[in-house]
């Protein structure tokens, strides 16, 4: 969130355009700006997981928080990769993403603009290997069996860091 206005907030969505989040999305349909200024409810620097509800080339994209797991993010770490690599992070039929979540025991939420939220990790080491794995995927070109290679990396790292007792 970059700026907070009277009836909406402006968010950086890592695109040529800024995202507009209406106050009604944040505070509900009954929200009255006269009663409670929006700035009391939200601040610049806040992070949101949102969907683009509408975008056409005549207006800035309109964001919505209606949906599963959408809303303000209060914990975890946000990293950024090149947006074109996001499909690799997800993989065919979510195979890569599911593997990452299982092996790192973290929640991993990739977004289309290249941002990835990692949260709920059992330890900071788990968080670190999740980040490293994502960086490796970002920098590795298309090869067959990448999912397996990353899985191997994660397993080896977990053993090396003493996160598991001799798994695999």
């Amino acid at each position, binding site marked *: *969130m*970059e700026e907070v206005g009277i009836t909406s907030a402006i968010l*950086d969505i890592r695109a040529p355009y800024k995202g507009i989040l209406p106050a009604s999305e944040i505070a509900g349909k009954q929200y009255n700006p006269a009663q409670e200024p929006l700035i009391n409810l939200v*601040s*610049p*620097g*806040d*992070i949101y997981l949102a969907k683009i509800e509408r975008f056409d080339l005549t207006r800035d994209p309109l964001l919505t928080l209606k949906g599963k797991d959408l809303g303000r*993010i209060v*914990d*975890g*770490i*946000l990293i950024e990769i090149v947006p074109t690599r996001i499909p690799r992070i997800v993989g065919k039929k979510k195979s890569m993403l599911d593997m990452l979540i299982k092996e790192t025991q973290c929640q991993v939420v990739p977004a289309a603009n290249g941002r990835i939220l990692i949260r709920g990790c059992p330890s*900071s080491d788990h968080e670190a290997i999740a980040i490293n794995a994502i960086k490796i995927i970002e920098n590795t070109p298309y090869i067959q069996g990448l999912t397996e290679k990353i899985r191997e990396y994660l397993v080896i790292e977990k053993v090396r860091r003493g996160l598991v007792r001799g798994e695999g």
Partner: protein
Amino acid sequence: MSITPVDIPVIPALKRTAILNLLSRSQRIDGRSPSDTRNIEISLGVIPNANGSAHVKLGLTQVIAGIKAEIGSPFQDTPNMGNLIVNAEFVPLASPTFEPGPPDERAIELARIIDRSLRDVRAIDLEKLVIIPGRKVWNIFIDIYVIDHDGNLVDASSIATLAALLSAKIPRASVNQDKGEVILDPTIATRSL
């Protein structure tokens, strides 16, 4: 008038807490320990038209320093000394936060810091830069060009400036008694550091 910067990109709150958390464990977000410096790369002589030049990469920060020596008149209050003029340009291509225009307060502060670092320790003997006492001296222009800002511009600029100065060559000036100077082929200038 100096104003609180308004154009600095908003750091997501999560990133801020992540940085602080890591620091409390003596780690940094790029894996370095608090006392590790980034990789330094120095290339000399990158600008053929300059008397001396250096391109420094400090991690991903990139700075070019160029030295131009010109013959001019001394300043009125120092007739028997050459001059050192340090200028820094934060060119817009180096960062989304750099606007085109004359040097802003950050660039001016950087230039003056580098200037003091050379002047106060007498890194260059300005008296050796005199050609005709009271009339003609060497003016050494040091132009610091920040081309990619990834932090620690002071160190990168300082390294670039010193590298450029140490490798600079200035033509030997001999004096034609009637008026002008005859410039011979470039020779190594003496720099006392």
